[in-house]
């Protein structure tokens, strides 16, 4: 008999997969539904003696996962790939590229930063034909090409970034059994979601858990909310204009989206702990309210990575599930999806580096990670049968079937905005400051950027 403690109690289960780190392959070649022919094709290259250094933001379990993907490349080609991760990636990569000792490949969580480095001539353009490949093989291929294309130091547009691993952000997490106990249904439209929110309050419970705390990055979860609501109240064209600063923060459309977020986060009855707790609650602690007894809240809007912070032993799909953060039925905007992704770019060229970037296009490079956990991809050539987790497959469907897919706007804005005043402004707003005043502050910083 095996009991699962959802709250409390010691569990010894450690992050799975420590065995991958020492070079063993996670899945034996030839087994399962993987596209092994793409693995066999790699063997034609002999890269023994080549070393490729990869530097990215992934640590801990994520580091083990990316290393499990790298292991196949090393096994097939004989190359040596050294991945290292850092929690201050943004800072490190700037220093290393500026000073002239960059890694071969950098994994950027934000396109904005990559664009910055490209403009300084610190990135190497991807091989010719990569853009065509992405257009053909990625769902909404052109948009991924656009997101990875930046001006070089001479102002000419080049493709620098190859997207690998995508997150879907428009998700609302909940406990199906708590919904069942209370008799709630999953809402299909934003109108239903708001009605459900009010109903939960009328039942004497608290509908939402929201936490904006994230140490030095406090405020970012709020920017996701605003972006998601922007996509649900305004056209994709307006969203793009906003990200490019053609539509100002002070525009009523943007202020309106901020106030939509406020309707959820600034209502004491709507959020666990009251509106005053929103800004200081850590985003990693926030989802735990779903699983408390009695529940502290019933819904939590957060990206696809958040199950990593669910209590030990939580089974996604059973103890916890998600639904699409719905769109307004009354607005004709389709089903927009907000997402983000990491992009690989070459910071120092070499033969092995080129081969490694090419490996990332192969089906097997996607499937190995997919078959483990937390990996979504727009690659439509992969065998989705390898998803071991039905919920991840469900997320991937949301991604592939979106009417509109838009990249996290704050990651595209200049760093001083998207990783600066947009965060701090939203914290001020959550703390009670007026939306128009917050928007004016953000806009004035943007106007004054060098």
């Amino acid at each position, binding site marked *: 008999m095996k009991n699962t403690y959802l709250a409390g109690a010691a569990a010894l289960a450690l992050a799975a997969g420590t065995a991958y780190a020492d070079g063993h392959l996670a899945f034996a070649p030839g087994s399962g539904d993987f596209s092994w022919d793409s693995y066999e094709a790699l063997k034609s290259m002999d890269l023994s003696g080549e070393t490729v250094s990869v530097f990215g933001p992934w640590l801990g379990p994520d580091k083990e996962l990316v290393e499990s993907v790298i292991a196949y490349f090393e096994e097939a080609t004989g190359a040596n790939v050294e991945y290292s991760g850092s929690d201050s990636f*943004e*800072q490190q990569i*700037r220093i290393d590229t500026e000073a002239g000792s960059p890694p071969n490949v950098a994994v950027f969580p934000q396109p904005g*930063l990559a664009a*910055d480095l490209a*403009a*300084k001539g610190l990135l190497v353009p991807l091989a010719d034909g990569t853009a065509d490949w992405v257009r053909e093989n990625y769902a909404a291929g052109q948009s991924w090409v656009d997101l990875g294309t930046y001006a070089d130091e001479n102002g000419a547009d080049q493709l620098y970034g190859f997207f690998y691993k995508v997150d879907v952000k428009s998700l609302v997490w909940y406990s199906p059994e708590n919904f069942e106990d209370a008799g709630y249904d999953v809402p299909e439209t934003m109108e239903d979601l708001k009605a459900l929110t009010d109903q939960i309050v009328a039942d004497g419970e*608290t509908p939402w858990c929201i936490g904006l705390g994230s*140490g*030095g*990055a*406090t*405020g970012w979860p709020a920017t996701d909310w605003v972006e998601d609501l922007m996509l649900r109240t305004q056209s994709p064209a307006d969203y793009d204009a906003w990200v490019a600063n053609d539509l100002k923060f002070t525009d009523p459309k943007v202020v309106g989206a901020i106030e939509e977020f406020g309707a959820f986060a600034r209502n004491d009855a709507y959020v*666990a*702990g*009251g509106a*005053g*707790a929103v*800004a*200081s*609650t850590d985003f990693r602690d926030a989802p735990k309210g779903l699983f408390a007894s009695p529940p*502290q809240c019933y819904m939590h809007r957060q990206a696809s990575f958040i199950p990593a912070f669910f209590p030990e032993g939580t089974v996604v799909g059973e103890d916890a599930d998600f639904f699409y953060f719905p769109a307004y039925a009354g607005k004709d905007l389709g089903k927009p999806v907000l997402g983000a992704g990491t992009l690989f770019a070459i910071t120092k060229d070499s033969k092995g580096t080129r081969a490694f970037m090419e490996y990332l296009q192969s089906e097997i490079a996607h499937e190995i990670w997919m078959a483990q956990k937390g990996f979504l991809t727009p690659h439509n050539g992969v065998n989705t049968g390898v998803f071991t987790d039905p919920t991840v497959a469900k997320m991937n469907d949301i991604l592939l079937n979106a009417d509109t897919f838009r990249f996290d706007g704050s990651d595209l804005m*200049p*760093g*001083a905005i998207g*990783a*600066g005043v947009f*965060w*701090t402004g939203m*914290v*001020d707003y959550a*703390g009670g400051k007026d939306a128009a005043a917050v928007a004016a502050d953000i806009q004035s910083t943007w106007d*004054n*950027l*060098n």
Partner: protein
Amino acid sequence: MEQLLYASATIIVGVFGCVAYFYGSNLLLDVALPPRGEKAGRNINLSNMIRPWLFLGPAVALLGLYLVYPVIRSIDLSFRDASGDAWVGLDNYRWMLSDAKFYESLINNFWWLIVVPAASTFFGLIAATLTDRIKWGNLAKSLIFMPMAISFVGASVIWKFVYDYRGTGGDEIGIINAILVGLGGQPQAWITLEPWNSFFLMIILIWIQTGFAMVILSAALRGIPEETIEASILDGANPWQIFWKIKVPQIWGTIAVVWTTITILVLKVFDIVLAMTNGQWGSQVLANLMFDWMFRAGDFGRASTVALVIMVLVTPIMVWNIRNARREMV
């Protein structure tokens, strides 16, 4: 094993090389200009002129390279644009003077400069004095010193468990709120509570730096000649008088050194603010503002301008130290 050998070898080479320089260069000077023979007088004068620079040489070279050179570069960058290429004149300074966050940081830095050095030195002096009088003093010293030895990431988690706030209805995991709720009060989101949150952040630095002050001041207190204290005991002075009238004046120089050092550290403080609030809720400080512009925004021009302000703020301390040094030399 190989790594161990390599490590020991590099350690020995590094340290030995350093000793060899000082020993060798001084020996060379003595051989080249012997303080004997017919030219003894001239040689002594000459070597007296050269020797300070043998002593100072490595220090001056390293300081010049690792600190002076970046300062000069910062001055240059502060007149340039974000990428450090185009000359923009005083634009960065104009931006700074119109930036509300800059003024907020300046005011917060002012409070940090007043509170932290004073409190750390005060608690450090108390700790140093009291622990010298008790049997388990060394243990007490080690415990008060421990915050200095904890890595910064560790410290930031420690203080999360102190200030954490779970909102109404939650089970508090921050000890201050837990005590407050236990006493029937309302929990508070301490780090968002303007303007007091800056002071809560200062407490963290005081907690860390008291150990520093204690160690230095304790060494100085031990250096006070026994006779002085014995004499005053015979004169009938009580412990209070001995402390304020005898001990404190004797170690006044050391107190000033500790105060100066912590003051300068405060000017540079940014990791506490970055980790706890990221300068939000009105708690921004200059060093974190600089860090933001440098690594978040990638604007080297503005970052350098803020850095120069930090460096200019140290001028009064420099002037004061020069005057002290001059006085000693007379």
